[in-house]
């Protein structure tokens, strides 16, 4: 059973009891999330079946292609802002030609995966939590279980596979659009030619920057999917619960994207 019945607890007697209850709930949520992830990974052996493939394609379309519009705008302006801010400061030392390096490295290492993670958490993660939450409160998940259809294999695994594939690709797309945005600002407002900009951008960035960024995006995709699905499955109390689960899924995903981003950077660059 991935879904849960509503739980009612008497009010905690004191602060310590309340704290202990939060610690227990936190540990239980981490355990449930971990188990959900393991179940989804195990279910991946069915990913190549025709039905699963179709569902994966649909999820890839929903999470990737339908997010392209917002990702394009966000990435373009992120790159433009980065180029403008660094260019204004660097122009004080006649070094504005180096904005290419600043934009490329920051987009590849951090901003690309980070912005993609935030957008997917807000767009796709919330949709996942809301969809699964609604299915829970309308007892569709229970119906699947009654029919001996594994909800994790049927619902979580395609989403996990789709997000694991699409998040790194979207992160790379974000980087490219961001670099193009930086180049537009460089050429139009800072007097940096496209050739100099691209030359600088590719001179100091390394393949490691690209791959660490993509790995980070992959982790973000996995975490957003698992957290959102977990929150969706944990939905109780009808429509109100769906709203609560959606909000919580986005919030927890944001926090995890930030914290995980720090630790991956720490792991590879320090």
């Amino acid at each position, binding site marked *: 059973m991935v879904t849960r019945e509503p739980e009612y607890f008497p009010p905690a007697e004191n602060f310590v009891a309340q704290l202990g209850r939060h610690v227990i709930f936190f540990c239980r949520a981490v355990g449930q999330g971990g188990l959900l992830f393991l179940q989804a990974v195990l279910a991946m052996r069915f990913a190549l079946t025709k039905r699963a493939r*179709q569902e994966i*394609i*649909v999820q*890839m*379309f929903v999470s*990737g*292609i339908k997010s*392209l519009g917002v990702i394009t705008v966000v990435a373009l302006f992120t790159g433009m802002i980065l180029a403008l801010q660094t260019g204004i400061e660097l122009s004080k030392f006649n070094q504005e030609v180096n904005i290419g390096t600043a934009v490329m490295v920051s987009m590849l290492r951090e901003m690309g995966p980070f912005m993609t993670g935030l957008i997917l958490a807000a767009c796709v993660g919330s949709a996942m939590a809301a969809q699964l939450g609604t299915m829970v409160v309308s007892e569709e998940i229970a119906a699947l279980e009654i029919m001996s259809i594994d909800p994790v294999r049927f619902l979580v695994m395609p989403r996990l596979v789709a997000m694991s*594939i699409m998040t790194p*690709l979207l992160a*790379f*797309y974000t980087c*490219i659009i961001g670099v193009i945005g930086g180049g537009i600002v460089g050429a139009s407002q800072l007097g940096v030619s496209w050739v100099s900009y691209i030359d600088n951008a*590719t001179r100091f*960035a*390394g*393949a490691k*920057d*690209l791959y660490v960024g*993509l790995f980070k995006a992959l982790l973000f995709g996995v975490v957003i999917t698992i957290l959102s699905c977990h929150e969706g499955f944990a939905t109780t109390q009808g429509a109100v619960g769906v709203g609560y689960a959606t909000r919580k899924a986005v919030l927890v995903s944001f926090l995890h994207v930030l914290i995980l981003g720090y630790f991956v950077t720490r792991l590879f660059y320090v």
Partner: protein
Amino acid sequence: MRKDCVARELTREMIVGAFMVMIFLGMGYFTIILSRETWFSRKQHMDVMFKNVMGLREGNNVVVRGMPVGKIDSLVLEGPWVRLRLVLDDGLEMKKDYEIRIVATSILGGRYLEIREGSESLPTLPLTSRFVGHEPYDLMADAAAVINKARTELVEGGAIDNFKRVLEQISAVIARVEAGEGSLGKLLSKDATLYNDVAGTVEALRDVVEGLQRGEGTLGRLMSEDDQLYNDLAAIVASLKEVTAKIERGEGSLGKLISDDGVYVEVEEMMKDVRATLDDYRETAPIVTFTSIFFGAF
């Protein structure tokens, strides 16, 4: 209805597939660009031994004549040495007087390996040879040594004391100038006497110069375009030169006087006679005078 569903699925698959292909192509291109690998060119390997690599890392560039030609593939400790394995583009020929050294990219850090192939006239060494690199040039250590030397010179060498003394002297001079002492002080003070004097002198000098320019006065005529005075002076100088030459040759009385000892002796004899005559006269003069007076009375 089913046809519509299939068509929609195919469209989705096509869009997702096209997007993925595009992104994968982009990632492949970026991988090639950012890793700076030349995958389709032949590579050669070379081992270089160093005593100290000064923080050189795997992936640092190898440069020949300012051009990147490869990378450092690995660094391995080997006894007292560090063995560097280089991956280089094909075509590098190492001569017998080769030089390999580690160079700092900037004072802020970063290193690369610089290879000088050596003289073309010398024999080529196979790349399997044991190449030995020079001791690295430690920019920071040199900078620290220079700073230490400068500090020693400043503190122990008395440069600071000298500088202080110079400053005190300059301060004293400035104080005197401010007090209006000395020519400079007077010139800079509110008292305009010296200034007026200087201005008057300058004015007079200007008049003189203008007079000279107009050809007034002897000097002016001398400096003017009219050559008459110059010619006159030149003629006088020529005459003097001629007279001097005659004197040197012993011609004329003056020349003989200077060059001929006989004339000198005669003149000297004559002078002696004159002196004796004058002495006689001086001795006889009172007697003559007295006699004249005495006999004049009668």
